[in-house]
């Protein structure tokens, strides 16, 4: 069943990449995660195997009973029972975190078939509920996750304190237990050398800026994830509102930077976009880093209306499909790094020949 489920995920379009959303030219996706734990159980880092299993069963039963994540519209993955390559697929699709993939014992992932909702059971916290949507729409994402959380909490006894709010394994998440983030594509700010000052400014507002795969990853493909840091002392809607204001400004700055490039240095901009397309369309060996950077150039060209034969959602999906686990799963075998570069180039050529 699990193997079939991974195949199903690979065969279906990922809703947050394939569907249209507000401001999708710059904001790729919006995500909110809620950390929750159950009263009377230790956090996963201190729990025995039996307790982890009990939590898995309790949460799965609650999810089954919920309207948002119930069967038959949902897949379940026992992380210790699926092959490493499948775990990596779930990581690349942003359904699982690196920590979750590296510590599979007693961990279970529940995923809605369109991948818009998921729950990591026994990650750092017992529940990490996630909702992802295309473009910039944190308010809508909040409504969806708030409803799912309410449905789950009617079946589960959450660990909650009147003063501290939802109790989480790490005090950096206590309170709302909420991390809201938006994935932004900011090549204009990078090319005009404004990105460092921008990140510095965002950090001052108690917001975090990270690379594509969260903590520790750099800004490959000019993709940046902006999220809240503070979880206690503010309401969820207050946090979302402040984050939304900052993201709106970032989108405006990015648009202005692109226009400035077009006005002042049109040849360099067109050259960058054209070379990116050329490499993706005609090369026979492509490293992951080069592919991501070229896809960033191509995406900017598509956003600015410089290509009319390439769809932005196809570029979004290419951002995902060029990662190592996806390449290997689609090829049906393990590939060395050198082999992956060849397969990646072939995939990009095929996509752009369509």
């Amino acid at each position, binding site marked *: 069943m699990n193997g079939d489920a991974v195949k199903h995920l690979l065969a279906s379009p990922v809703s947050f990449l394939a569907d249209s959303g507000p401001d999708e030219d710059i904001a790729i996706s919006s995500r909110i995660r809620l950390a929750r*734990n159950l*009263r009377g*159980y*230790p*956090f996963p*880092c*201190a729990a025995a195997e039996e307790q982890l299993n009990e939590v898995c069963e309790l949460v799965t039963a609650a999810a089954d009973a919920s309207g948002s994540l119930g069967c038959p519209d949902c897949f379940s993955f026992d992380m210790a029972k699926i092959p490493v390559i499948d775990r990596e697929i779930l990581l690349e699709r942003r359904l699982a975190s690196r920590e979750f993939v590296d510590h599979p014992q007693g961990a279970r992932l529940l995923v809605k078939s369109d991948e818009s909702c998921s729950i990591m059971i026994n990650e*750092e916290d017992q529940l990490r509920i996630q909702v992802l949507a295309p473009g910039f729409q944190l308010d809508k994402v909040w409504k969806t996750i*708030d409803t799912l*959380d*309410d449905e789950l*909490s009617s079946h589960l006894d*959450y*660990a*909650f*304190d*009147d*003063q*501290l*709010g*939802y*109790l989480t*394994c*790490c*005090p*950096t998440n*206590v*309170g*709302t237990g*909420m991390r809201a983030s938006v994935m932004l594509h900011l090549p204009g700010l990078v090319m005009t050398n404004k990105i460092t000052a921008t990140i510095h400014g965002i*950090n*001052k507002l*108690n917001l*975090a800026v*990270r690379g594509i795969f969260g*903590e*520790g990853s750099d800004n490959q493909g000019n993709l940046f994830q902006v999220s809240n*840091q*503070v*979880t*206690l*002392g*503010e*309401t*969820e809607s*207050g946090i979302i509102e402040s984050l939304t204001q900052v993201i709106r400004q970032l989108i405006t700055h990015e648009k202005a930077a692109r226009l400035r490039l077009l006005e002042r240095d049109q040849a360099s901009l067109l050259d960058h976009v054209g070379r990116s397309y050329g490499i993706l369309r005609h090369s026979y060996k492509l490293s992951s880093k080069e592919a991501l950077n070229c896809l960033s150039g191509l995406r900017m060209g598509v956003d600015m209306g410089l290509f009319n034969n390439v769809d932005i959602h196809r570029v979004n999906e290419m951002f995902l499909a060029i990662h190592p686990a996806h390449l290997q799963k689609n090829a049906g075998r393990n590939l060395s790094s050198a082999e992956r570069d060849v397969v990646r180039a072939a995939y990009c050529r095929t996509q752009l020949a369509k």
Partner: protein
Amino acid sequence: MLCDKCKKKEATIHVKKVAGGKIESLHLCADCAREKEEQGVLGALGFNLAEVLFNLGEIAKPRSAEDAGGASESADPGITCPVCGWNTEKLQSSNGRLGCPECYRSFSEIIGDALNRIQRGRMHIGKRPDKTDPLLNTAALRIEITRTRKKLAELVRREEYEKAAVCRDKLNVLNGKLKKLEEQEVPGER
């Protein structure tokens, strides 16, 4: 003492590492410490989130103990959670994680200090699982009223009068709630 990194804000996090007989010191403000942790810089130096968050352990003594010549006194020696058995050592080795919900009470003193540095307040004013109004106590209400008042002033300054009117109505509701709660409360409490 000013932060070693930004040289602007007061350093509130002091980390010391002893390696090969050499002592490395790092004095950071909360913002720069968080940034360094995100970049994995602290980890690479052998520091971990627990030390940054809680000023924990032998290699991360509070400055007062160090200044007083205290040699091996740790910030919180020997606290153990009676429910799950989690202790200060595990808090440090697990990168600042707690063992169970009850640990918040067991380690309340050091967690309180950490929350003051990393969070915006000490009172949860967001959603509640029982779906009751989150603003059910005067402290939480006052925080929200201050915030709403600031927002109203900002909206008026920007001449966004429609939004300001909504904000003013919200402020009136909040003030009404506060007045009602204060009348209900026994004098001397909270």
